[in-house]
Every structure is written in C-alpha cells, then in structure tokens.
C-alpha cells in the first residue's frame, strides 16, 4: 500500500500555463510504482504543463479504478483478466494494453542459507507444501517458512501460474495454506533479511544487495540461471514477465504523448536503472 505523489516542478513563475495544466492519473501495480514515479518526475521536469499523480495499491486496484473511470492509466503487472474486460465493457470502458517494460521475479533467501540453486519443480514443491525442510533441497536442517505476496497482488498470481503450477493451466496445485501472505514487498524483504528459514519472492528491481537470489533451472538438467537484465532479455531466466499500462480506448492527446515518451530510449534507460528490463532492448 504505497501511495506516492509525484509533484511537478514549482510553476509559480508560469501562472498562465497553470490554469491549463494537464493532469494524468496513474495508478496500480506496486511492482511498477517506483518506475512510474521516476518516469512521472522526469516527464514533468521536461513538460512543466503536465501533472502526473502516481499511486500504488496493486494491479487489481488500478484495474478497478480504470473500470470506474477514476484513472487515465492503470499500471498492471499481469495481463487484464476476462472478468475485468467484461466489467469494463459493462461500464463503457475499453481497456487498451501497452507493454512498457519487463520484469523478472527473483526467489530470495537469507544470505546464510547454503542453498544456491533450485529447479522450478523444486520451488513449486516447496510452495505447495511437499517440501518442509531445507534438507530436502540440499540445505541445512531447518524448517522452510514460505513467504508470498497477498492474493490480490499481480505478483502472487504470476508466481502461482508460472512457478507453483509450472505454467500448466490444468494444474490445480495451491500455495500451502501455511504460506505467509504479506501485504507488501517490504514485509517479505524484512522477514527474509532476518529469518534464515524463509524463502520469498519479489521483483528483481526490489531485491536489496544483502539478500541472496536463487539461480533457477527450468527443467532438471537445464543450466541454473541467476536473474539479471541479460538473462531476462535472452529468455534464459524462467520467471520473467511483461509489465503493462492500460488506457481507456486508444490513448489520445497528452496521455498518448506520455506513453510514446515512455517507450523512448530516454525513458527506457530509467527502466534499466531501477532493475527492470527495458522493452525493445533485445532488438537493439
């Protein structure tokens, strides 16, 4: 539940443009909020007549706001769901998708945990409750404490589908019920930092240097790959995804200018600075 407002530069010197300031409301995924905020600040510095307010709250919140027509741009860390499209259309809203960056999910453990690499299958078995002791995956004799984001987080849904269920839509494996559901990324990082029993996951851009990331193999026998910008771009890292912004109908006017700018190389540099992966970087 992060709520941050990007304030524009002081515009007292240009009262004329103040009256015709253009506002963009931008809300949604907590994964994207820092990135959206950085973009908004840079863009407002270059375009003093535009005001962009950025709020987090989760992908679901952003979508709900888009459907209720209270935001111009909804940030999402997953694709829009069919129910959300239906609800939007019932409300006269036509959501249009824009891929604005890529993100990788890092699986993190306490730095003293000797486990360095896991297969997707092993991580799935840990989170489904099949493995309950670190010994079963080559670690110390310690209980495993599973940490996850809340169910309403896009990261949770993505992790469920890609890792726990191994990308198989027929697979109905659940998170073990004793998985801790923490309301924020900070909660997961705080717990992993002090608890050697814990395993958690979080966006690559949010993992601090003092935590250990696990190298992941897609299948038994595949190489173990650490998450990084190159491994996400060459698709060798298994848990990576696209990040989206949704608008009501094709973007027009000031919103279109903003979205076009986001895809420019200047804006995509900020993506890399924040630990995400720029879109189009693979074509460069």
């Amino acid at each position, binding site marked *: 539940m992060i709520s941050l407002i990007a304030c524009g530069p002081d515009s007292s010197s240009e009262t004329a443009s103040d009256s015709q300031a253009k506002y963009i409301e931008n809300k949604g995924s907590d994964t994207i909020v820092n990135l959206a905020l950085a973009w908004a600040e840079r863009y407002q510095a270059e375009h003093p007549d535009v005001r962009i307010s950025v709020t987090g709250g989760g992908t679901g919140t952003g979508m709900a706001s888009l459907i209720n027509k209270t935001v111009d741009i909804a940030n999402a860390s997953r694709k829009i769901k069919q129910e*959300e499209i239906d609800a939007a259309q019932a409300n006269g809203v036509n959501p249009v998708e824009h891929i604005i960056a890529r993100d990788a999910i890092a699986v993190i453990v306490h730095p003293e945990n000797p486990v360095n690499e896991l297969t997707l299958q092993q991580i799935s078995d840990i989170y489904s409750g099949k493995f309950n002791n670190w010994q079963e995956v080559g670690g110390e004799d310690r209980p*495993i404490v599973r940490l996850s984001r*809340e169910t*309403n987080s896009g990261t949770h849904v993505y992790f469920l589908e890609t890792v726990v269920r191994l990308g198989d839509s027929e697979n109905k494996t659940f998170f073990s019920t*004793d998985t801790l559901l923490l*309301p924020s990324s900070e909660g997961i990082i705080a717990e992993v930092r002090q608890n050697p*029993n814990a395993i958690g996951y979080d966006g690559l851009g949010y993992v601090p240097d003092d935590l250990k990331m696990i190298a992941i193999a897609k299948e038994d026998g595949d190489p173990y790959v650490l998450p990084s910008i190159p491994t996400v771009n060459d698709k060798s890292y298994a848990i990576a995804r696209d990040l989206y912004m949704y608008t009501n109908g094709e973007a027009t006017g000031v919103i279109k200018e903003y979205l076009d700018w986001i895809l420019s190389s200047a804006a995509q540099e900020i993506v890399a600075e924040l630990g995400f992966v720029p879109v189009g970087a693979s074509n460069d």
Partner: protein
Amino acid sequence: MEKSLNWSEFIITRAIRTSGYSAILFVALIFLFLIREGLPTFGEVDLSSLFSFRWYPIEDYFGILPLISGSLIVTLGASLVAVPFGIGTAVFISEIAPRWVREILKPLVELLGGLPSVVLGFLGILVLSPFLRVFLDLPTGLTALTGSLLLGGIAVPTVVSVAEDALDSVPRAYREGAWALGATRWQTIWRVTLPAARSGVLTAIMLGVGRAIGETMTVMMVTGNAPVLALKLSSLFSPVRTMTATIAAEMGEVANGSTHYHVLFFIGMVLFLISLGVNIAASSVVFRSKKRAERILS
C-alpha cells in the same frame, strides 16, 4: 422566566434523548448495510463451502473457518495479556501508588493508548517478531502470539482507564470499613474494592476485548496472514489470518458486487455479531450480579 426555563429544558431534554437514540439508529443502520451487502453470500456460496477450511478467494474458495479461528485465537491471547496487566495496573494506580506516581502513570498510560497501531506494527515486524523467533526457537516470528502481545499492549490502556475510573468511584467508606475490620490491603482490594467495582471492571474488559478483536493494522503486519485453521493452543505459535486483516487486505482490490465482495461483507457481519455477543454476555453478567446485590441489600 419560569416559562423560558421550561422551554429550554424541553429542548435540551429532547436533544439529549435524540443523541442517545441516534446511537441505536446508527448501529441499526450499519447492521442493515452489512446485511444488505453480506446476505447475497448465501445465494452465491454453499453453506458447506462457506464453513470449510480453505480461504483462497481468487479461485472462489471462501472457507471462513480459518479466519474466525484466527481472530479468536489472537483475541484470546490478547485478553490473556490485557486483562491481568490492565486490571493490575488499574489497581496499582487507584489503590496503591502514591499520589505523585499516579500523576505520572495515568497520563503515560493514556499516551500509550494514543499510539497509532501502525507504529506498533512496525515495532512488531522489526523488533518483537525477530526476538520471539530466536527466543522461542520458532520457524518464523510472524505468529498469532506476536499479534496477541501487541494487541494486548493496545488494549491495556483501554482496560486501565475504564477500570481505574470504576475503582476510583468505589466509596472510600468501603475501604475504611474493611480496614476497620482488620482486612489487609490485599484483602481489601480483592474482596471489597474490586467486587464493588465489578460492573465497571467488566465493562473495561469488554471494551479491551472489543478493541483487540477489531484491531486491524497491527495484526495484518505481524501475524503472517496464513489462512490456517487454528484450533489447538499451539496454533498461538504459528501464523494465522484474522477476519479484520482479511477485510483490510482484500477489500481495496475486490470488484464491487462480486461474490468475493459479498463474502467480505459477510465476514464483517460475523465480526459484528461476535462483538455484539460479547457485549450482551457482559451486560447480562453485570445485570445479574446487580440483581443479586440488590436482593442481599433488601
């Protein structure tokens, strides 16, 4: 003169009566609203799946038993902390402490009551939960116990200030009577003052329990929010998910009018009914004991 006095008296009486009744009106309206939003649950979710053990709303598993048990165990733990500490503190402040200690202690306790619960949550995440994990050798420090201790801390000021007022209003003659009969200080407190203040002390406990069961932010931060059925006393040492934390964490994201939305309101109804039950139980105890006392006196 006489007439205008009557007239203003009439207005004041009416105003006071209206504000008194308005409390009933507001409670009734809130409950009606909860019912209106919560009752559709019964049409959308089977009773058997509503009272089952899995809470995973994004795939339509709406078993609320883990949430109810989670709230109850955290509240139970909090009461075990808040009741003895709260009443003990109240007794100390009102009966034992010298005047100057009392003058420092009372405002300090009230200040504690004003601490925002999110600040206590921070303390819980950064200090209490790591400490409990190491001290009790638990897999994780984010447990029902951590929530209970913090909620106990939140409820203590409520219990203290209400119980202290009740003890304070016991006539001095009661204590002097006991002392004159040769009772020790402890006997006076335990056998005379506390029973005389019983209804106020019970109210204090109820308000404290009510504060604990309704508290949201702190429990959401420190109890781990895992929807596990908590039936044994050992569940106190594992993560739980409470009803309040569930509503707070999920309400912001839920589509208006969906099944999940109705179930969240249904949980609100359950929460409301539980605290109503606690209050009715408490007031019936107070009422009955009063009648017995009146019988003895007459």
